[in-house]
């Protein structure tokens, strides 16, 4: 089996999309790791849907953690100058109102049209929508950061999602452990491959036919 990028490196690549001044909401799992990789020289304002903007990193020692400083991922954060708090109606007003520039979300399945399925699968019978639908529908840009296939080897990037939909036509960029793909009107465009991977190898693990960008390159990490 060829070497794939780690979860941290997927997050690092996704974080390169954060522009200076961007307001960013990170989903749980791989996306939440992107907080550690904001490109140098850029300031990002992180939003957590449980009602905080402009929070800092996870504290390195337990003594610095406070029960009332915790993000939507259940982890404590440190305060930053300018941080502020608000209630849920305002928090989702920010999301629905288009005030969040970028959200990075995990996915169970993504389609070539940018449909996202990330809240449950049929065998579970029940699942957690949480804030994911509002984020996927309403943020200016939706980036998916995930492993390219499941641990069992099932494909996740599909012609059409088979799991319950989170939001149709919402994803603009997919960052995985082997490739970076942009969603275009004509389908998925392979823009970058991980070191050591070829276009053909990525295509073999992707259901829809990939278009290859003219300037395709190795992922810069």
């Amino acid at each position, binding site marked *: 089996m060829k070497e794939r990028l780690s979860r941290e490196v997927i997050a690092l690549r996704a974080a390169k999309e954060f522009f200076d001044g961007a307001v960013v909401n990170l989903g749980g799992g791989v996306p939440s790791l992107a907080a550690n990789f904001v490109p140098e020289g850029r300031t990002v304002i992180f939003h957590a849907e449980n009602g905080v903007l402009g929070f800092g990193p996870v504290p390195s020692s337990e003594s610095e953690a406070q029960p*009332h400083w915790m993000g939507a991922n259940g982890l404590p954060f440190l305060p930053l100058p300018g941080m502020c708090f608000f209630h849920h109606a305002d928090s989702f007003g920010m999301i629905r109102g288009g005030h969040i520039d970028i959200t990075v979300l995990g996915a169970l399945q993504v389609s070539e049209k940018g449909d996202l399925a990330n809240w449950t699968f049929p065998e579970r019978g*029940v699942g957690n929508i949480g804030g994911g639908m509002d984020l996927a529908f309403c943020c200016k840009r939706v980036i998916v950061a995930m492993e390219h296939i499941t641990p069992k080897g099932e494909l996740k990037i599909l012609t059409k999602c088979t799991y319950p939909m989170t939001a149709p036509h919402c994803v603009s960029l997919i960052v995985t452990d082997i490739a970076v793909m942009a969603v275009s009107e004509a389908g998925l465009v392979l823009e970058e491959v991980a070191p050591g991977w070829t276009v053909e190898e990525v295509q073999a693990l992707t259901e829809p036919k990939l278009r290859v960008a003219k300037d395709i390159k190795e992922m810069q990490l």
Partner: protein
Amino acid sequence: MAIKKIFKTPDEAIADISDGATIMVGGFGHAIDRPQTLIKALANRGVKNLTLISNSAGVAGKLGIGSLGGKPFIDEEILIEKGQVRKVICSVPASLVMSRPNAFERLYREGKIELEYAPQGTLAERIRAGGAGLGGFYTATGVGTLIEKGKEKRTIDGKEMILEFALRADYALTRAYKADTMGNLVYKGIMRSFNAVMPLAVKVAIVEVEEIVETGELDPEVIITPGIFIDRIVKIPKEEG
């Protein structure tokens, strides 16, 4: 100031909640934002056929996700596992750890509890709308998903949207940091969440707080919830919280 809002014990504060009540339960899901004292009192009271409106159906407390040091805390699960709940309207019904199903999932699979999914932002806005005297609103969230089922659709400003109705309830159980005797509330950090939204949308708003101060002691510039929305206040007993 004729209305007395301070209740000595959580049991007294919830003493009139009866079978079949619809109850909003505040917080996002962290130990600090859940009204643990009031939930516990409601479990002790044992009323049945409740409808809960909450962000979750008790998905994190037993797992200790969202508390410092991973310490378990009280959430809706103690009501659901005792069979006190008929229906939950929420965005997060299932355990946060799939290998450890919660009481809700077990009862749901047996067909013993009803679920109405509401995306978190839609849930918050339905409650806000209820509290603001509105009938509902249109939102894009949920179009083309199972959420749109049975809902009126409209294209507004070129965007497809669905009609969501406002939510109101008999009671709200919420948590804040400090109250004055008039019921004015301040919060700490992330505690506002659903706690600062729900009291507006109910007949009787009951809040638990860490501290109760005399009227006039809270800076009017920092009060988040005006006291007119709050009916009953209980101080969290020392050993809890």
